[in-house]
């Protein structure tokens, strides 16, 4: 679990993974050159790395630890980035596309519905295609965009994992909170081992505080790690 100066969901993610899901989770400082040897999966938390004054995630990609994460991903290790983590993954080229300012230009914090578009190891195996998850978003720059030909390829390869939808699971323009192309909320890379999503599954792991739908996603990663099927 990476910690950049300006990360602010790092402690939340650690709480979700460690205290709720029972995983071993440690924060790794942005200035470190290497990941711990026992790393089975890397999580990039949300926040405002380096203040995000230039462009979201644009500075973090140059930090030493992101090079180590890139090498880890190239070896097939699973990498999951939420919110600012997703932005960093796009900036560093581990995921296609980019995240632009929300279409109404405001920061939005709200619970949204997400339709699971693909059930894959290691990120969404606990869900079935068509399941609707209730998970919050909170970002100012979450409008996913990508070149049309790239989008077509991603769609045909099943790389779109999550789409914003309404409570009934219908993907409608009204259900799109930020102007993302094709209501995209989360994608994986072509190899399927790097997952970026704007919603915050770590804020939906307890009944009474945001519900438990986030466990579906974080738990999928844990299942894969426990099965030894990753890295």
């Amino acid at each position, binding site marked *: 679990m990476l910690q950049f100066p300006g990360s602010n969901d790092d402690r939340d993610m650690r709480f979700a993974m460690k205290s709720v899901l029972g995983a071993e989770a440690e924060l790794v400082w942005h200035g470190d050159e290497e990941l711990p040897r026992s790393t089975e999966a890397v999580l990039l938390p949300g926040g405002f790395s380096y203040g995000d004054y230039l462009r979201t995630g644009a500075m973090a990609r140059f930090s030493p630890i992101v090079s180590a994460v890139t090498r880890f991903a190239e070896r097939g290790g699973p990498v999951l980035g939420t919110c600012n983590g997703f932005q960093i993954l796009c900036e560093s080229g581990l995921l296609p596309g980019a995240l632009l300012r929300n279409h109404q230009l405001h920061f939005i914090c709200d619970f949204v519905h997400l339709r699971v578009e693909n059930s894959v190891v290691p990120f969404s195996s606990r869900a079935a295609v068509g399941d609707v998850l209730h998970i919050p978003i909170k970002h100012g720059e979450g409008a996913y965009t990508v070149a049309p030909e790239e989008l077509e390829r991603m769609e045909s390869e099943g790389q779109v994992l999550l789409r914003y939808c309404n409570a009934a699971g219908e993907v409608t323009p009204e259900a799109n909170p930020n102007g993302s192309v094709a209501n995209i909320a989360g994608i994986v890379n072509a190899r399927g081992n790097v997952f970026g999503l704007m919603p915050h599954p770590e804020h939906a792991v307890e009944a009474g*505080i945001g519900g438990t739908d986030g466990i579906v996603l974080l738990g999928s990663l844990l299942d894969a790690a426990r099965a030894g099927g990753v890295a």
Partner: protein
Amino acid sequence: MSKLQEPTVDLALAFEHDLDEADYTLILEILGRTPTYSELGIFSVMWSEHCSYKSSRSYLKELPTEAPYVLQGPGENAGAIDIGDGLAAVFKIESHNHPSFIEPKQGAATGVGGILRDIFTMGARPVASMDSIRFGPLDDPKHQHLLRGVVDGIGGYGNPVGVATVGGETQFHERYRGNILVNAFNLGIVDADRIFLGKASGVGNPVIYAGSKTGRDGIHGASLLASAEFGEDGEAKRPTVQVGDPFTEKCLIEACLELMQTDVIVGIQDMGAAGLTCSSFEMASRAGTGIEMDLDRVPQRAEGMTPYEMLLSESQERMLLVTRDGEEKRALEIFSRWGLDAAVVGRVTDDGHMRIRWYGETVVELPIDPVAASSPIVNRPKAVPSDLALRQQLDLDAIAPEDDLEAALEALLDSPNLASKEWIYRQYDQLVQGNTVIGPGGDAALVRVCREDGSATKKALAMALDCNPRWCWIDPFEGTRAAVAEAARNVACTGARPLALTNCLNFGNPEKPEIMWEFSEATRGLAEAAIALGTPVISGNVSFYNETSGTSILPTPTIGVVGLLDDWQKHAPSHFPKEGLDVFLLGPEEASIAGSEWLALRRGIEAGMPPKVDLVHEKRLHGLLASGIASALIVSAHDCAEGGLAVALAECCFGQRERPALGVCVTAPGPAGESATAALFGERAGRVLVTSARADELLAAAKAADVPCRAIGRTGGEHLQIAPPAGSSASPRLWVDARVAVLENIWRRGIPRRLET
């Protein structure tokens, strides 16, 4: 470095610094010589209203500040209460009114930044923010701009810093057209035995400066901006507003909390108003020591800054700390790791003096206490406002009753004061740190208590900000009692026990006797209510001079109450949880339209004494709510406040995250033949709408607690239906019969629709 050239100090220059002749004479007496230019600057900020509380101190002394669980009362950076499990809650509210009016985004942002520093200075991790914000009418484009800017500033600072904004209040009123209010609250959690204080103890210990570099921003913010009323030249004061950097603040929080895990720090304080000057004087004053400092060692943003500028700069995100001698390297290393500037700038001395050098030349040599602790107290004259009787007088018979009850309900729900504040709080991160049980939109926010190592406890803290300024204007004593009672009641509605309070007293120009009277009445009411409800005052802030061109704001004593809930899972939401529940009204049945929101909105009249708050009843109500919610006898609780019973019922019905809009069928309480207007829209403190699935048990519990409790209806369906009291004449059968979804849409669109034009 060339020799310092400073202007010669005389009385005229003192006047320019907002000091009067008596102040200047006293300064000459204290020093036995003419002050240097830098020294004059120091006196002007330290003796300003904002820093010295010279008009208010004698009144604040009368406030109750003690309880067995109060660990730190007023006088430090923030107050602290013991919440068990070895933990303490640290909280405070502070104003940033004038900067926000001049530059709404940066003004509000630095307001949030400043209050956060007051909290983590004490060693606490800031976990929850709330904001009480007030504007002129929302149809004024200028105030639309101000609202947008303030919200942008609060979110633009609070979101990156990683502290959830969980609640607050927003109001619009003509009397804030020339002077908006931005009051920022923060609460943090700390180990009870590791609270840090702002004391420069230990002769010889190093004094360390950490955080952002010092620049020329915000010079004289405290004295010229916060301690004078606005004229037509408000724009010209923009350079006195500071600019915030939440990224530096976030790093400063983490670095300070990391350093506090060691035993290096002796004392620590943030540099807020009057920056380096105020922090160093206060730290030395509290410890009874002195400080010598070399200004040239302070990290600087601009070249060629004079000592005067450096001493008065209000650059943000800066801390002053004293460490144990020999440990300075450890402190500097941690700041450096977080990319922050830090330097040893001085030492603690034993002579009770502040000695400040600039490239070896002494530019300030002042005794600490006459400047910091014994600043002049001004006993300002008071006078009852000449129009007070008019404010309080209302001939109820002369008020035309409402002829279209549903239209009135819709108008109230659509009004910016009562409409949903979702447009505002959706722009705030309400969830970060993962402990928000009840966020914005509830009666009070409820935040689970976590330890610094990230492990969760069973406990939660409830917090609410409240004030009804119209009532405070009609009667500042009664209105302030009501504000305390309302904030405490809102906290109690979650199931928590109210424990302590903080306050932000926003008033006009204290040099006017009528304003001073309002202030003295308000503090009297605050003291009485705080004692009666067992919620001592542990921190606070006074903001005077909230006037423009002679027009003052309504007296606005914003009250923030914090309460403790032993088991966060046993809490009550404010909305109706499901259908088939019995609905009860706890508290008095009869209400009054005097001073009400309905009277202001529908009849354009702001007058009349609302029914007085019964503090004994309020205390009983707290007990009933706490025990009833803990035992699940009460499953929801909502304060019946502005807009009266009809608005409160509608709010309980509106859609929630876990359920769509839900109807209710109610018979209005009160005597047969009661006026529909008073029954539906009349207001009265001490009334709470609750639901229960165990009606008989609740009635018995209420009886035992001596709290009036009447079953008024049942949840279900899709309509809000309110029938006249039993025994009323048959026509009409229903006063209100409206689809909840329609009302909800009006309520949700109230603010955004006005901003879209």
